[in-house]
């Protein structure tokens, strides 16, 4: 009986110690929750960007002169940006259609930019850009490795009231017409206005025929993994 009691008290002390450690650690991680008026503090989320800061959180104003010299230098926005301008490069025609991703209706007057060349144009009433003469950039490694099926371009579309839309991997074929659709999504905010607004990415995948070749090119033996492409399945 005495032995049982000692085990019980040992267990209780362990529980008490665990509770103490938990409370101390939690207080260290969430100090505001344990401050005065802790209930309200615990329910208030941390300040989001653009939100009105409490006076004690506002940093003191600084002038440009107070900045370190490194930060005062003006840098061009895209210092490494070198558009593809090789006139000998084979080209293809590209036409972009910009639509509302929810209603699928065309969006006129969207500002469309081809990343690789910096070519910029606007969509017409049908949401379409004019045909643009664009290069067919191919990944050097992929080109040496296999007869790659297509080159790829990236396109960005800007429309007021919509999230910016970046489309990467638009498939291009030399001498041919490529049409691509850019999906735009309206900026929607909730009642608090705290939702983040960031660009939407749409990545066109590599063609499945190329992926099959790529996997087969490095297969150690015909049976490794899923095995080489064959007609019986």
């Amino acid at each position, binding site marked *: 009986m005495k032995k049982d009691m000692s085990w019980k008290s040992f267990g209780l002390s362990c529980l008490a110690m665990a509770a103490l450690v938990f409370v101390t650690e939690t207080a260290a991680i969430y100090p505001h929750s344990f401050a005065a008026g802790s209930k309200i503090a615990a329910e208030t989320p941390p300040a989001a960007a653009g939100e009105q800061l409490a006076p004690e959180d506002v940093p003191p104003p600084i002038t440009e002169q107070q900045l370190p010299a490194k930060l005062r230098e003006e840098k061009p926005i895209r210092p490494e940006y070198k558009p593809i301008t090789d006139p000998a490069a084979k080209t293809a025609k590209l036409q972009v*259609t910009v*639509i509302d991703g929810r209603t*699928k209706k065309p969006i006129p007057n969207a500002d469309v930019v081809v990343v690789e060349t910096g070519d910029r144009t606007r969509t017409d009433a049908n949401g379409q850009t004019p045909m643009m003469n664009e290069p067919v950039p191919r990944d050097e490694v992929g080109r040496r490795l296999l*007869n790659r*099926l*297509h080159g790829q371009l990236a396109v960005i579309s800007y429309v007021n009231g919509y999230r910016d839309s970046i489309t990467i991997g638009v*498939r291009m*074929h*030399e001498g*041919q*017409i*490529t*049409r*691509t*659709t850019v999906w735009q999504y309206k900026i929607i905010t909730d009642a608090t206005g705290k939702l983040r607004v960031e660009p939407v990415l749409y*990545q066109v*995948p590599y*063609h*499945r*025929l190329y992926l*099959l*070749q790529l996997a087969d090119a490095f297969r150690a033996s015909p049976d490794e993994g899923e095995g080489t*492409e*064959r*007609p*019986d399945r």
Partner: protein
Amino acid sequence: MKKWLTAMLAVFVLVGWFPTGAIYAAKTPVHTVQNTPLPKIVRVGIRENNWSGQPDPRGRIIAVQYYDFERYAKDVLPNEWSPSWNTDSLRAGAMAIKMFSWYHTLHPFTVQGQTFDVDNTVNFQVFRDLTDQPQTNTAVESVRGLAYVKRGTGEIVELNYRAGKEGSANWQYRNFQKMAQWGSQYLAENGYSYERILQFYYYNRDLARTRQ
């Protein structure tokens, strides 16, 4: 008791095997190009995306979307064949895609309570909304009003295809009644018309006109 059990087993075997098979065979209609109009729509099961944002062939069906039959083919062809390929290879591809989806509109699936004809992945044919290209659209339109069906009966059959290997006709694929996509390009580059490409891979099939 034993006699009863034997009798019941015999009845079960006779009723369960013999007559139902015969009734089923008699009642199942054979869909032919003569008695079956071209479908107007295809029900596409949209599978959930994997973490890299691509439809997962083993993912759940999250929606079933209805597409115009020809538009569906136009959004499949550039994702299955390369739009830069020879016109006759693209036309052969357009016919295979058409017949594959036609067959499946007649034999739909029900998974997780959702009925659809095809899904949007390599389980059936790779479908990506609004990805049609001018070259492939022309190929799809060129086989409008035509079908590739079983010779003699006109039965609508599934035309299957696989990637194959580059730079060869991939004749082995004929044995499995599948067109090799790279093989179709190889043959087209060597002067084969799309009808000859189809004849090369699919045995006992013929071109036919669809019902208007």
